[in-house]
């Protein structure tokens, strides 16, 4: 009995130590790196986003019968925040930085004849999963200029595609030829990157202290840049404003 308690005690101590060490090591690495946060806004009135007629695919049409899906070229939140803007560090990263490819695999889902998300930001060689949640076949047709093009069907219930891009490219248009209204973008950049959320806000993690050029890219309005300085242990802020045409 006594020995068993002892053993359990030693084991839990070991586990605790291990967990502590892990947390510590993460803190150590994060301590030296900063963060950039910010908001992207749209000045002016957003253009009218046309409703999409999905009558060709009766399943999707029925699915959206009550709330017709509209275009997603300019998606503005209630606070004027601009969604789906890719923000990334375009200049100033040390050559050593960003060498580590994130192990997290973002999902690129086809659901209700829409791409979810509409825009995805990826690191070079970062794997992502293409899935089909619809009971109909889709084809995924990215049309890159700096990466090899591919075009593959994904029947309902098929295994997800596990794919990646080898070269930097902002941004690769992706379309489904079977459902021509399905349209999305994949941004492939080296290093920290984020896509603005429904309020237009974004966070770039793991940015080491230094001076950078930050780029925000939006599918309709193009790219904007600004300089930003990240100091150790202090998040920097960078806000962008796009003008409606």
């Amino acid at each position, binding site marked *: 009995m006594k020995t068993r308690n002892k053993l359990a005690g030693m084991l839990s101590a070991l586990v605790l130590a291990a967990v502590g060490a892990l947390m510590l090591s993460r803190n150590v690495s994060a301590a030296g790196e900063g963060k950039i946060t910010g908001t992207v806004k749209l000045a002016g009135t957003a253009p009218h986003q*046309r409703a999409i*007629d*999905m009558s060709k695919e009766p399943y999707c049409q029925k699915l959206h019968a009550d709330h017709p899906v509209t275009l997603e*070229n300019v998606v503005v939140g209630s606070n004027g925040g601009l969604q789906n803007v890719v923000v990334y560090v375009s200049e100033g990263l040390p050559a050593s930085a960003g060498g580590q490819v994130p192990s997290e695999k973002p999902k690129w889902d086809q659901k209700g004849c829409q791409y979810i998300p509409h825009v995805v930001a990826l690191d070079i060689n970062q794997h992502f999963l293409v899935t089909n949640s619809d009971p109909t076949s889709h084809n995924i047709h990215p049309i890159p200029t700096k990466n090899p093009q591919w075009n593959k*069907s994904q029947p309902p219930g098929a295994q997800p595609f596990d794919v990646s891009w080898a070269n930097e490219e902002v941004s690769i248009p992706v*379309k489904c*030829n*079977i459902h*021509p209204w399905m*349209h999305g973008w994949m941004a492939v950049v080296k290093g920290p990157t984020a896509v603005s959320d429904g309020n237009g806000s974004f966070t770039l993690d793991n940015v080491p202290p230094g001076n950078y050029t930050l780029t925000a890219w939006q599918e309709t309005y193009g790219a904007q840049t600004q300089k930003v300085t990240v100091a150790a242990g202090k998040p920097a802020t960078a806000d962008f404003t796009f003008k409606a045409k």
Partner: protein
Amino acid sequence: MAKVFAVTVILIAIGSAIPILMHKWVPPVDISTHGPLIDEQLSETMVEAGISFLAAQFILGLFVWKYSNTPKSAKIRNFPGGATGLVTAAVLLVGLEAMALGIFGAKAWASVYFTPPKPDALKIQAQAGQFAFYFRYPGPDGRFGPIHPDLINEGTQNFFGLDPDHDPDSKDDIVTAELAVPVNREVHLLMHAKDVGHSFFVRELRIQQDFVPGLDVSVHFTANKTGRFEIVCTQLCGLGHYNMKAYLSVLSQPDYDTWLKQQATMQ
């Protein structure tokens, strides 16, 4: 064995004819004004082809039955009339029948292709691309704005490459994913292919016409029954060919007007 062959051939011939006589596998009910001519031509051809088919199979079976295993001592006999008779029969019976079919069938073809559409026919543009059809109505001005291929972008729903900011004719153009036409009104469909070859086929409308990239062709028709029908692509156009379709709605004039107004608001 010869008898088995004879019986089999005759049974196959009868068996093949039964589904035809049952009228189960026939083209769907026609909704066009020119369709009856085609349907009539189809049934006349069916009668002639059917008779030739049955006759040939029956006689083949019969002769195989009768002239196999003839004793060795039997003498070879020639078919009465010989080759001359058969050639005459082929030319007179089958050849002339076929030519007659062709001549009378030309009427049905002419009704679709040789009769120009009336000037007041409703002009609609159809565009085919991998793998969907889109349609364009000229709007109140009755004119289609020009197509700018470099502006075509399905991601922004600019399927036709229109530039309403610079082309006044494009301003009121109505682009739809469904083809709606008023009943009993002649429609002149202008067909434009965006990328590769496609085809416009509506079974009930008795219209099938390829879209030719680089060459704008047109068809015209008058639908005389209301309803919703499938438009399918029948020219192999790529991986989504099997799912390239749209719908044709034949509406009463008031319904059509309402529909068009509603579509105009959605632009």
